[in-house]
């Protein structure tokens, strides 16, 4: 288990609303319908790599079930910033951008491949976060995301003897980016976490179960507190994590 303190709250955050997708609705359409263009974006994928990441985060859950989530980023219109494991592209660009990429939401829109989605709001002023993203992107001394990418690629590919990086205190790069970007604005994303294991599940638990913490700290830490009581929307199409073999399916169809 990873050391996670349970929230004292018995009821989940009502400002975090379940908003089921309409039949055939893509993730892009879901965001557009809810007029969500900013915030922390969580995505739960069903490809093998995403499945393994969801299972890896079960150590943060008291029921030990896989997480709904496999990727975290910061939404900005129809794009989002993250440090993804898939779509790394030109390896030479990884150190140049500190592993940070701007991805199109459209590429993560297909419900079968990315069945779960949430958008969460922790910051009063999302514009400040954009500046912070640039700082992390250009200054690897803030957080070394390529090091985390390597750890996680090794895990999802089963390379060598690598175990679950979260158990070694290596956060998931996209979530570590989101946490660092908020941290630069002094916004705490994972009050329950006591190990260096940033991950989408920890962010999700904060939004869902730590409302009173944010209420108290927003009051007590004025005058310049940038944080807000978390709010947002989520949609879960795949509760139990399963790896859907998208590529093989395509191959079978072709043959």
């Amino acid at each position, binding site marked *: 288990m990873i050391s996670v303190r349970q929230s004292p709250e018995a009821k989940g955050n009502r400002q975090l609303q379940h908003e089921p997708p309409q039949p055939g609705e893509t993730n892009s359409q879901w965001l557009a319908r809810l007029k969500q263009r900013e915030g922390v974006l969580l995505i739960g994928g069903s490809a093998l790599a995403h499945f393994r990441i969801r299972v890896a985060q079960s150590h943060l859950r008291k029921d030990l079930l896989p997480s709904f989530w496999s990727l975290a980023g910061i939404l900005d219109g129809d794009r989002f910033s993250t440090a993804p494991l898939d779509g790394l592209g030109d390896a030479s660009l990884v150190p140049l951008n500190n592993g940070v990429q701007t991805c199109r939401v459209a590429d993560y829109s297909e419900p079968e491949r990315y069945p779960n989605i949430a958008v969460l709001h922790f910051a009063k002023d999302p514009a400040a976060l954009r500046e912070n993203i640039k700082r992390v992107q250009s200054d690897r001394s803030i957080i070394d995301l390529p090091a985390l990418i390597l750890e996680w690629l090794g895990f999802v590919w089963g390379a060598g003897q690598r175990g679950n990086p979260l158990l*070694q*205190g290596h956060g998931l790069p996209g979530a570590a980016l989101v946490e660092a970007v908020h941290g630069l604005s002094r916004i705490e994303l*994972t009050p329950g976490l006591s190990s260096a294991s940033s991950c989408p599940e920890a962010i999700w638990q904060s939004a869902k179960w730590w409302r009173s913490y944010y209420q108290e700290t927003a009051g*007590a830490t004025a005058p*310049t507190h940038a944080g807000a009581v978390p709010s947002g929307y989520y949609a879960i199409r795949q509760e139990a994590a399963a790896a859907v073999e998208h590529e093989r399916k395509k191959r079978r169809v072709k043959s």
Partner: protein
Amino acid sequence: MPYVLAPAAVSSREALVWIGGINENPAGARLELAHPGGTEPLGGAWDRWASRNGQYSLDHRRFPLRGLAPGNAYALELRVNGQARASATVMTLPERLPTAGQRPFTVLLGSCFCVAKDGAGRVGNTFFHLPAGARPDVKILCGDQVYLDSPWTHYLFATHSPEELEAEFFENYFRTWTQRGPASGFQLLLESGANYFASDDHEFWNNAPNKGAYVADTWLPGGSRRWLEVAGGLFRRFQTDATIARFEVSPLSFCIADTRVNRSTDRTQFMTPAELGQVEQWLASLPGPGVLVLGQPVLTGKTGIRGHLGDWGLADFDQYTPLVRALHAARHSIVVLTGDVHFGRVASCRLPLGCDLIEVVSSPMALVDSKAKGKWGPAPALFPVFDIPGVRKVPVRTEDFSSTQDHFLTLEFSAVGGRVRMVVKAWSILGQGGSFAGVVYEAPGGLS
């Protein structure tokens, strides 16, 4: 030039905030300290230090914030003529230790930070990345927060005038206290939560107040006196003017005792008799487990002739005997927190009255010189190592944790039944080759 906020002592209802203006003129400006409860005007007197050459100055004060609520975080902002110039956060102490399931009361322990060896501000960056659940309520920096005798080559071959010492020492403090980068720098650590300081030799020079083998200024009495005067003045202003500090989070008591400032050259005392009396009294009247902070380990033997070239340890002093006696007479568990030795270690022994003594060593945060890299070794097999009349030697167990990498520790305390659970976590400084982060020790059965 900068202003710096660094919370100092804290209680459940009050916080003392160190406010420093470096090469500034606060008396000629309108200063305010903004906090969630309002804004405090900072009129009145400032303690001003100015170098003889007129080039450097420090205006500082320790400002009390009163009427705070226990166990709360407060964001502070220093405004100068309406402009935000510095910020900090401070946590008030909870009235009692948290119980299981609540966030534990967390103390950061670190020592030996050489700013010249942490150009990228990695210690601050590691602090920035501490997960919220592991972030400290208070920090204990138990010696060598600055290396005033570094680089040693500079001080071996030349002596210095008081003006030069002032300039060099001030610049060293200035670089350390204002080290700042994006999500990095020692200032980030200083401004986040209360700081309790104790000094060790490098707040002065290696082996102070005895002659330092590679510090030419200290070879003659006049030189060491000048050095002590300048370095001591800056220590009192930047770090602390208290040689004994205490606080309680019931049932746990803390005592931070300086073992360097009032050390004698004849190896009779490492603190004044009155200070030792306070420590003895504190140990004798503990209502529950005690945490004693010292500049050097107590689980140690005599240094012997090496002390003339290196650094005398506590066991080399006459006062070690009454300190050991007082520890052996303790009726509650004692945790000794210390640094100095350039390695991390946990060792424990059961004292004659059945209480545990656990010594936790954390050093360094930023190693001063690769030649000074610590050689980890287990604690001596017995405590005390040598005969002390009337004191029974008890066996010492050295725990698995060992590190010579740059790091700091956090100690988490919570109340479980009538005992205190203590969990020690180690955090290697990011980007320095170390890779550990997590639990390295838990006191079996808790502290009583």
